[in-house]
């Protein structure tokens, strides 16, 4: 019995939660606000407390079919309706459909005279009636602080507010109570945060002239929650909270490969390109053609039928188009075909979070297969290092989860070892890291490209020199000199020297060939001479032999004639021997 299996632990009932529908907030609170309990949202002016409350109601009504009551102490119903129209919330329509009830509570100290004992039962009755009239599941009170201004008796108010929270709980409605931030405490009265089951703190901070809104879940009874400060934004679609990092690393991966846009660079990768959905970082010092590399990639993506968003933080779209046209990368055509989107903005235009949201929005609208950010380094001008890093982490996560190939460029400063570190420290997050740099020597600078890492793929270990020509980027073949790889003028010198050597070797070979030929001819002449000599000797000998033959013939015939005239004596053999 002592050992509980994890499955049994899971089977325990979880705290029921009411999803807010607010982007990101449900992720941080792991499902939403505590169902049927009061939640306090506190913050200073301009944090979006009222907006968060209204969005909670509107999303609840539209997405979860939970009607809601908004009891406003500060703004009237028409004012509220007008204020949120820009976010696409039609409060009037919701009211007509009985999904929302707006109740403006007007508290005016000057109208009220206090004589003797009282309580706030009227408020309870009013709220109870509003809840019952539409069967509301959600309630927003914005802000009960106003009560303190209207009623002088603090003791009564405090006990009544305490009673209100309990009453809301008994009613079983999921409530949001907004409160103004106090000095040194979460709320001005120092009361609400203790009687709420969940407290969310909104904060509006200006650092280096850039405002970032942040949200923190201060407490959440009976549930775990994200404890960090999460930046959030008020966007055109309501509040958007961005969890700093996604909770798990469980995105799907693709084993398809996309081309880098430069054939020779493809060759440096074992599978001829980047994995689809991976993130690529191109780092380099100033003027090492990072943007050109990025544009080549964007161009390739578009030519392969994909869609690409190019975030340019340094150049205007027109400038980018002109500059890339000069190296035969025709981005205009893709732009016209609607495959490419160039989003150019100064990084300082918005806070980091705004950039992230813009990116999210564009990615959702444009549905690209690849995203290029050129360069991420400029974002540092907007936030500090930590913020940029966390933003990039989120960005990379977001793109990976969506299976979008991402290419970032980053400017690195300094030389030597430092070149292999990015200021943003994102190098550990990316899958492929290409480094471009100046190779300086003998009075000139040349560009060199190398692959520092490429997860899950073999890659070349060479530093390849490349040229930015009018046809785009060209990687040059590796030339080995006496002291390693040579570049630039040395490369040319080396090549000329090699050519000269080759020529010399070739000439030597030809000379040898000619010599052989000559010798052969001499030998052949000799052979002919000898043969002629032999022929003459042969003829002479043959002549002698023929003469001999004819002489013997003549002798023989002479003897026969003699024998015929004188019959042979018994000693004829003598004649024979006499020959």
């Amino acid at each position, binding site marked *: 019995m002592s050992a509980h299996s994890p499955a049994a632990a899971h089977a325990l009932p979880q705290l029921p939660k009411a999803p807010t529908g607010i982007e990101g907030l449900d992720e941080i609170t792991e499902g939403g606000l505590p169902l049927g309990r009061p939640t306090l949202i506190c913050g200073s002016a301009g944090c979006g407390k009222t907006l968060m409350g209204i969005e909670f109601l509107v999303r609840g009504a539209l997405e979860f079919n939970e009607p809601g009551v908004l009891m406003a102490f500060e703004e009237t119903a028409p004012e509220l309706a007008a204020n949120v129209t820009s976010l696409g919330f039609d409060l009037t329509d919701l009211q007509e459909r009985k999904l929302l009830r707006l109740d403006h509570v*007007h*508290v005016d100290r000057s*109208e009220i005279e206090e004589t*003797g*004992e*009282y*309580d706030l*039962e*009227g408020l309870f009755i009013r709220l109870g009636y509003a809840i019952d009239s539409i069967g509301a599941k959600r309630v927003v009170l914005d802000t009960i602080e106003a009560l303190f201004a209207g*009623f002088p008796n603090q003791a009564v108010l405090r006990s009544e507010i305490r009673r209100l929270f309990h009453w809301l709980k008994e009613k079983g409605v999921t409530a949001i109570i907004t409160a103004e931030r106090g000095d040194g405490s979460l709320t001005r009265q120092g009361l609400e945060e203790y009687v709420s089951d969940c407290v969310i703190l909104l904060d509006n901070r200006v650092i280096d002239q850039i405002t970032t809104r942040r949200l923190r879940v201060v407490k959440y009874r009976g549930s775990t929650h994200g404890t960090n400060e999460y930046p959030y934004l008020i966007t055109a679609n309501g509040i958007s909270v961005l969890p700093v990092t996604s909770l798990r690393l469980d995105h799907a991966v693709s084993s398809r490969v996309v081309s880098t846009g430069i054939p020779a660079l493809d060759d440096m990768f074992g599978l001829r390109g980047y994995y689809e959905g991976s993130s690529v970082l191109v780092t380099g010092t100033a003027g090492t053609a990072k943007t050109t590399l990025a544009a080549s990639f964007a161009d390739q993506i578009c030519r392969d039928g994909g869609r690409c968003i190019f975030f340019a933080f340094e150049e205007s779209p027109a400038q980018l188009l002109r500059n890339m046209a000069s190296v035969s990368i025709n981005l205009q055509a893709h732009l016209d075909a609607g495959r490419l989107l160039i989003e150019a903005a100064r990084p300082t235009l918005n806070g980091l979070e705004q950039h992230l949201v813009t990116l999210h929005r564009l990615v959702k609208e444009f549905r690209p297969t690849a995203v290029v950010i050129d360069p991420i380094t400029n974002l540092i001008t907007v936030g500090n290092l930590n913020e940029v890093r966390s933003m990039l982490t989120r960005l990379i996560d977001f793109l990976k989860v969506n299976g979008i190939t991402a290419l970032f460029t980053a400017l690195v400063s300094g030389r030597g070892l430092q070149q292999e570190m990015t200021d943003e420290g994102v190098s550990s997050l990316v899958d492929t890291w290409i480094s471009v740099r100046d190779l300086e020597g003998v009075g000139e600078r040349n560009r060199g490209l190398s692959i520092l890492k490429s997860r899950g793929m073999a890659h070349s270990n060479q530093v390849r020199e490349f040229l930015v020509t009018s046809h785009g980027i060209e990687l040059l073949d590796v030339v080995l000199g006496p002291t390693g790889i040579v570049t630039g003028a040395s490369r040319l010198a080396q090549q000329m020297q090699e050519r000269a050597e080759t020529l010399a070797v070739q000439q030597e070979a030809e000379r040898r060939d000619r010599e052989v030929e000559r010798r052969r001819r001499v030998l052949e002449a000799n052979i002919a001479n000898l043969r002629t000599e032999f022929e003459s000797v042969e003829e002479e000998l043959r002549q002698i032999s023929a003469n001999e033959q004819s002489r013997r013939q003549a002798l023989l015939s002479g003897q026969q004639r003699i024998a015929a005239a004188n019959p042979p004596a018994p000693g004829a053999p003598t004649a024979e021997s006499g020959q």
Partner: protein
Amino acid sequence: MAEVAAVELEEGFQEMWELRLYVAGQTPKSVTALANLKKYCEQHLKGRYKIEVVDLLVNPQLAEGDQILAIPTLVRKVPEPIRKIIGDLSNEERVLVGLDVRPVSSK
């Protein structure tokens, strides 16, 4: 607007005072408030007032109209402007000031 308990007293020739007392059930505070109110009216507004008692437990929808939060609340509807007095009306002086009633010189 349903009237729950309209206590109508004899009409005077001067301007009628229309008073409305919001209560929530028969709580001690409400009972005290109504008793006090009747006493003051008899004393200072004899024949020129009309008291309407609204029980919000019965008619919760009426709370919105007069912006009632506290119980009990006394609302002076006529004469204008609307004045509100919250509490059990135990402090006579403040009630009279709140209602802007010139007290009838003590008998």
